[in-house]
């Protein structure tokens, strides 16, 4: 049995969904970040797969951009988290609901 591109794509879709669900149900901010990373990497996997399917190197190069952006995002995100939770004991997103309505 050969593992065709459809498998890769399905795997990516599953990973993406998992990431999305993770963001939805996890409260820990850091875990939420990780879930978002999962989603981004699902996209990367899709890029690479399509790149192979199409025989086009461009798709693979896009992955690098996404990786760099993801890294930058994490840097800033962690900075924000540190700034906020420096004086708080716990790091759940649900603690932040001062503004609403």
């Amino acid at each position, binding site marked *: 049995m050969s593992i065709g591109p459809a498998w890769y794509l399905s795997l990516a879709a599953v990973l993406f969904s998992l990431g999305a669900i993770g*963001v*939805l*149900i996890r*409260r820990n901010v850091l875990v939420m970040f990780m879930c978002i990373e999962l989603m981004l990497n699902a996209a990367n996997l899709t890029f690479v797969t399509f790149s192979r399917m199409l025989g086009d190197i461009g798709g693979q190069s896009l992955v690098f951009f996404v990786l760099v952006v993801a890294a930058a995002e994490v840097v800033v995100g962690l900075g924000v988290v540190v700034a906020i939770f420096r004086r708080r004991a716990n790091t759940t*997103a649900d603690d932040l*609901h001062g*503004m609403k309505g």
Partner: protein
Amino acid sequence: MLHAAFLMPLFPLAGFVVLLAFGRRIGEPFAGWIGTAAIAGSFVSACVTLAGLAGRSSAARSLTCSVSCGTAAQPHAFFTWISVGGLHVKAAILLDPLSMTMCMFVTGVSMLIHLYSVGYMKGDRDFTKFFVYLNAFVFSMLVLVLANNLLVTFVGWEGVGVCSYWLVAFWFHRDSAASAGKKAFIYNRIGDVGFLLAMFLIFSKTGTLTYVSVFAHRHLLSGGGTATAAVLLLFLAATGKSAQIPLFNWLPDAMEGPTPVSALIHAATMVTAGVYLLCRVNPLLALSPDAMWVIAAIGGATAFVAATIACAQQDIKKALAFSTVSQIGYMVLAVGTGAYVAAIFLMVCHACYKGLLFLGAGSVIHGLEDEQDMQRMGGLRRVMPWTFVTFLTAWLALAAIPPFSGFWAKGDILTNVYGKSLPLYALGLLTAFFTAYYMSRVFFLTFTGRERWRETAPDGRPPHHSPHEAPWAMRAPLVILAFFAVFAGAVNLPWVHVGTLDTWLGPVFGSRLFAAHQSAGAQVGLALGDAVVAIAAVLVAWRLWRRSATRPALEPAFLRRVWYWDNVYDAAIGRPGQALARAYAVVVDARVIDGAVNGAARLVRSTATGVRRVQTGYVRNYVLGIALGMAAILAFMLSRTWWS
């Protein structure tokens, strides 16, 4: 020299702006002098323009002026005012002998009346405001006259209307003045509807509002009664502005304004705007003989009705106001006949002598400490010699006694009407009798007979002690206008054929001008008839009113109450309208509209308070929102692939 045409409206505009901005600081009397100087500048510009225009050949005297004046082929504008779809309205000047004539007498009379006002309004609380309004009025009037298209004319039309409203209600702390202002405004608005509808109609048919283009494409209006409708709608506007039947009732009430206002706006200039408009669109009038008959009939009827009413008025200004209505009726009659030049001729002469009459009346009122009741006057000729002499000339001019200006102007009209329709001529002649009669009555009651102002009034008001002649600023305009009241007829004497108003204005109207080909003998006969009627009326009045001041039999309630015209309007429109409005206020406004509005507000609020609960502040909830939205969009998109 034609460039000066642009200065005409700019001077009063500048005066208006300066007085509006710094009037309070300038104060009395310099604000008045600035206002007067602005109009004087305008008058000088008009003279210069006139010289320039007269220097051109008679065929080249009609031109659309732009800043680069003279290139009539390419009418640039000050600026393009409106450009929407097919509608391009440019603010340009249409300069031709007709507008030039109007400008001359508008600026001239305005200048004199401004001068007069400096004396008359002395000490008034709102002295500077008065001149602000007055300059604004002259500006609007010149815009009305000089506009090269209907829309800009309408702007001027509304401008003079609103200035008239401000000035009628100038002493708004008096209830009567405030309501008179409203009345004037509302009557004018009715006419304005006609103007607007006429513009819509003309634009829908010809696709333009510029006079020259409308006239060039006027064949598009002919047929199907379109031209008649357009002309009658414009005439409705004219009846409002020029106080003709059925919209004439506002003018007598407008006498609540200061007397210079009555002289300038409600006698000399603004109220003739309707006649000017009809003359301006004369090519359209030519398309519809039916409408011309309507105009002539209304004009004749108004002249007659107003003249009869004027015979029974006790208030000097009201009597003069009805006289104005009657005289404009003559002008409208002339327009309906097609005798446009005669109409303009009377307009010019009327501006001089009626302005003079009002100024004279103002002088009397001023001298008698705001007394307007002629029962409380009499024998003033000794106390106010200047006023007396000048009023005398104006009286004779209005009564059409030869050789005063009114005789020539009115004679011109009646000669033309005679050629058009005999019944209308008879009506005109009858009116001429009443005209001479009521004017003589006013004159005798005011200046001759017993000095009734020395007595205590029947209603207990104390006698006046020291009537006095007016200051020089008020006398000078009287004298100048008196000169014109006597000699203004000279511009259009029937036996002269060079350099007259006829040859000057003729090219504007061309073949559309009604030509009453009377033989010389017939003309002399008609003139003699006019003169005899006028002199007879003066004699009758002399017999009746020289000594006696009260003749109730000659002042029936029917005439005093203006043919019960206001009562009819009140019963037919006013009361039902009020009742309807009240009903609406209670039922429709309070229940339906307020209900709907409040209901909508409540709906918004309840929806919002419901929806805002979704905005919980929890970030995971927001993610859920995004996810659900994404799911919905994906579902919609994929459903399209499956179904297609």
